[in-house]
């Protein structure tokens, strides 16, 4: 197989690969390497001062904390969504299935102003919550809310096909052997969808950490309280502190690359797992 492909009679290998690498270098690799070069050029002390500034550290805590929490919420509700969409019939199902991807399709700025308007204390949902002392908009709760919105489709769309592929016979066998429905879920179904759930979690988390547009309108952006890390980069840029902005960006980039490796590993695990079963 490999040999046959190596001597492929198809034309265009050099041209297509050459153009691919050229365009990749021009658009992605060279620009991204500017962050590395600028960071190395600024020296350790300036770098450390920028990335360990208390206001920046507070933003890491919010960004990473809220992103983890949002991804965890998405795992629970994403699994319920996927389950309901794969297994049940109910009115409005087609609409639900199509709109699950809304957070991918709706521009983040639009999502941001819509969420801020709804959950503000005079908005339709915010005004309902206010008597109970729950304030969502313009504080860290708003950040969490926007990140839950943005991450939901990642979990639903990775779990849904895996759940649909699970052979009916496996569950029937478990039931036949005397397992209760709950035991079948915990011991058969959950282990089967676990790689997909973890992949969805990691993707939602990675997206949430870098998210900007949907968050800033509802966050309130109070220093030390509700500023996310991407906003810190913008703030530094607006003060013409390019070195500081780059230092914070390089911290985020390193984190993103580690997550990317983890996600690639998880996807490899998923592929092995699910292609064997088929």
């Amino acid at each position: 197989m490999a040999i046959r492909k190596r001597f492929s009679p198809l034309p265009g290998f050099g041209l297509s690969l050459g153009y691919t690498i050229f365009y990749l270098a021009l658009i992605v690799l060279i620009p991204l390497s500017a962050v590395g070069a600028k960071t190395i050029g600024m020296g350790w002390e300036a770098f450390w001062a920028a990335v360990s500034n208390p206001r920046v550290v507070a933003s890491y805590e919010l960004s990473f904390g809220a992103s983890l929490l949002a991804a965890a919420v998405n795992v629970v509700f994403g699994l319920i969504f996927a389950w309901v969409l794969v297994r049940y019939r109910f009115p409005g199902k087609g609409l639900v299935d199509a709109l699950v991807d809304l957070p991918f399709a709706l521009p983040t700025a639009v999502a941001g102003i819509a969420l801020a308007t709804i959950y503000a204390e005079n908005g339709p949902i915010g005004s309902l919550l206010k008597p109970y002392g729950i304030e969502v908009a313009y504080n860290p709760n708003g950040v969490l809310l926007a990140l839950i919105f943005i991450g939901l489709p990642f979990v639903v769309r990775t779990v849904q096909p895996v759940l649909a592929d699970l052979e009916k016979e496996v569950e029937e066998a478990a039931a036949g052997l005397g397992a209760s429905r709950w035991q079948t879920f915990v011991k058969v179904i959950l282990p089967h969808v676990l790689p997909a759930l973890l992949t969805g979690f990691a993707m939602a988390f990675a997206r949430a950490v870098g998210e900007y547009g949907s968050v800033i309108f509802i966050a309130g952006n109070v220093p030390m309280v509700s500023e996310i890390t991407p906003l810190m980069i913008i703030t530094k840029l607006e003060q013409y502190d390019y070195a500081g902005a780059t230092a914070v960006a390089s911290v985020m980039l390193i984190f993103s690359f580690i997550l990317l490796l983890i996600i690639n590993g998880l996807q490899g695990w998923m592929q092995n797992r699910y292609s064997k079963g088929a």
Partner: protein
Amino acid sequence: MSATIALQHGSLERYETPSTREPQWIKVLLIGIALTFFTVFLLFPLVAVFVEAFRKGWGTYLAALSSHDALAAIRLTLLTAAIAVPLNLFFGISAAWAIAKFEFPGKRLLITLIDLPFSVSPVISGLIYVLLFGAQGWFGEWFAAHDIKILFAVPGIVLATIFVTFPFVARELIPLMEAQGSEEEEAAVVLGASGWQVFWHTTLPNIKWGLLYGVILCNARAMGEFGAVSVVSGHIRGMTNTMPLHVEILYNEYNYAAAFAVASLLALLAIVTLGLKTLVERQSHKQKTESLALENAS
């Protein structure tokens, strides 16, 4: 990491038999939870955009859309997408051809690198072009000396948009073309077809739905990108504001009706995108079932 959902070919439904059924109350509860979450988190924001847009009536709505700055923003958004999408489409086809049809070392690494822009925060996607073309940037002086403006001008906006939408088409086509193999193309070459004929008559019909799917998602992101464009735009009204940036400015000026009027166009774009996406998924599913049926028949 893929930030897009891959085009699904199989059926995504699987209904229960008696031995694998949950109690009725659990079923109702789960559907109830999903529908509540759906209403509060997805439906409400979408509806709110249109409600707010029309709160002050059609007159205000139309006035907001036909203002000079709004029209300029719409033009810039269309122009940006018209440049970014074809470039990334061409790249996607080229990358998928090289990766799916040939074996070479470093292939997995190349795929990971193509995915990179998806895992970079939009803000950083903008920042990198500031570092390159800013006053103290690598190429900043050279472009300034030649009186070419990249940053805080249209070229910077286009570049940042190309960056954030870079993987969409490639990401869609690579797995699709890998799964299809290259037997058909090889047969065509043996029968004397030229490279271009092979692509046009053999490959393209097989990948057309995946291609369209990638283009639709790429276009939606290109028109809706906010963070990256915000960093490089400079926010000059009527000049370097795209539609999402115009929405931000109006909103921050407490001009909510106008902000939501422009936002409603973007929400409409999202709805059209989701509609087309569903349609393409259905067509692709049909094509797949038909070709399977043909294989089984022969």
